[in-house]
């Protein structure tokens, strides 16, 4: 039964300890061991508040909401970067988080060295990377720059290489966080059509975006988040309504 779902989130809540008391001094910790009265009660911030949803296999979900509404935290939770404070998340299938492009790139290494490093961080074997390598380079349109250290790349080239690695990892679930706002429009279109192609092949997509048009174009359903809560959800054909409600408030 659970096989139908790529992602199941059940009552997922995430609290972050706020920075100003996250780093307690050794002294405060030591004193706190013996005197519960003096133990600092950590101030927490609820980034995601009791969110539940399922994403069926092959479905595309758009996550929308203002900055700081908890979209990216939710994405990191699904990616398994950190555990939820409460609730459960189950994912089924090879998951590739594109939370930021080119994470794990080392500025000193060349593009091709970074392809190997980055793809192996996502779980690929060097043998597999070797066979994908020509395709990744070709897609990135970097040409001879692939042998240059990444520190000499423009931000667009950097993002192109990052995207190129990510989409060649053969993801079954792709988590994409506002990644398509980078690069020139030609490359953006290329990325979007690549995602569309992967979708047709049955890939599940969770897509964080500010652009309603993009969400309408790529997603089947959407979730609108506000202050960590999912305040609206439904088919993308009804996307306009909750957005306007929200704006008027």
């Amino acid at each position, binding site marked *: 039964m659970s096989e139908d779902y790529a992602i199941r989130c059940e009552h997922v809540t995430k609290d972050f300890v706020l920075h100003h008391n996250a780093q*307690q001094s050794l002294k405060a910790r030591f004193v706190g061991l013996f005197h519960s009265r003096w133990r600092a009660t950590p101030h927490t911030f609820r980034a995601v508040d009791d969110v539940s949803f399922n994403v069926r296999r092959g479905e595309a979900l758009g996550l929308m909401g203002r900055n700081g509404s908890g979209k990216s935290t939710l994405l990191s939770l699904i990616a398994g970067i950190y555990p939820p404070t409460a609730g459960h998340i189950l994912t089924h299938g090879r998951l590739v988080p594109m939370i930021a492009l080119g994470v*794990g790139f*080392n500025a000193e290494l060349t593009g091709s060295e970074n392809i190997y490093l980055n793809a192996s961080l996502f779980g690929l074997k060097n043998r597999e990377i070797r066979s994908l390598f020509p395709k990744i380079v070709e897609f990135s349109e970097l040409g001879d720059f692939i042998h240059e250290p990444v520190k000499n790349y423009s931000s667009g080239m950097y993002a192109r290489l990052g995207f190129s690695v990510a989409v060649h990892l053969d993801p079954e679930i792709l988590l994409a966080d506002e990644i398509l706002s980078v690069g020139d429009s030609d490359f953006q279109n290329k990325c979007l059509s690549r995602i569309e192609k992967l979708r047709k092949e049955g890939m599940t997509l969770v897509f964080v975006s500010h652009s309603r048009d993009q969400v309408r174009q790529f997603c089947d359903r959407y979730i609108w988040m506000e202050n960590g809560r999912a305040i609206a959800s439904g088919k993308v054909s009804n996307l306009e309504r909750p957005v306007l409600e929200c704006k008027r408030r």
Partner: protein
Amino acid sequence: MSVMSTTLPNPLAILRRWWGYRDLLYNLVSKDIKVRYQGAILGFAWSLMNPLILTAMYYFIFTYVMPSNLPHFALYLVVGTLHWTLFSNVVMQSPELLTGNAGLLQKIRFPRVLIPASNMLLNLVLWTMAFIVLLILYLPLGGRFNTVLLVYPLYLLLFIGFSFGLALVLSVLYVDFRDLKHLIEVTMQVLFWSTPIIYRFDMIPPHLRILFAMSPMTEFTLIFQDLFWSGRLPSLHLTLAFALWTAASLGFGMAMFHRRSPRLIERL
């Protein structure tokens, strides 16, 4: 999927899973080596320079300037400092392992233990260069190749395990206690001078010896001096004592890292 996670893990499957990460480990270590020797013409050869110069200095000072009554004193020093250097590099670099790789750990999910493991391997690779220098200069320094050296790999493994366990603990603790880095720097100085590396264990006043002997640093130093300098097998109780330290360090380190690292990522 949820049912699978409740069944007991099969040790063979776990082993196979870890074996699957060897390419990533290789890529992480080779990245660190490439970055370290970026642009240096002599590149990797520099890792030979430090031990070579150090050994030459020891030999010169303790043969011509301050002749010691101990036979082959330069060799004694080199064996002690060589192993101490590996230990101290691993320990000193451990606090910033997790925090220094925050960008990576917060964006990509991969087994976190590979970060300390790759650093351990990096240090081992660089250290091997120094060890090769020791092997080349071993005879000129007055050492004798002896059959007892055959057990050296076993002791080396214990030594690596001990250092790695400690590095795991320190890397986790540092996330919450940023004072730790400074504490380690000071402590390592104290530990170096309280370990019989540049003096002999016999020179310690007899009533204080037991205190020194309890230190795992003293134990591994004595073990390696036995093997390379005295040419004899380390005593059984020395071996057992250090094996116990290693088991404690590795066991505690792995348990702590496994239990606490998932909740640390958001605080890096």
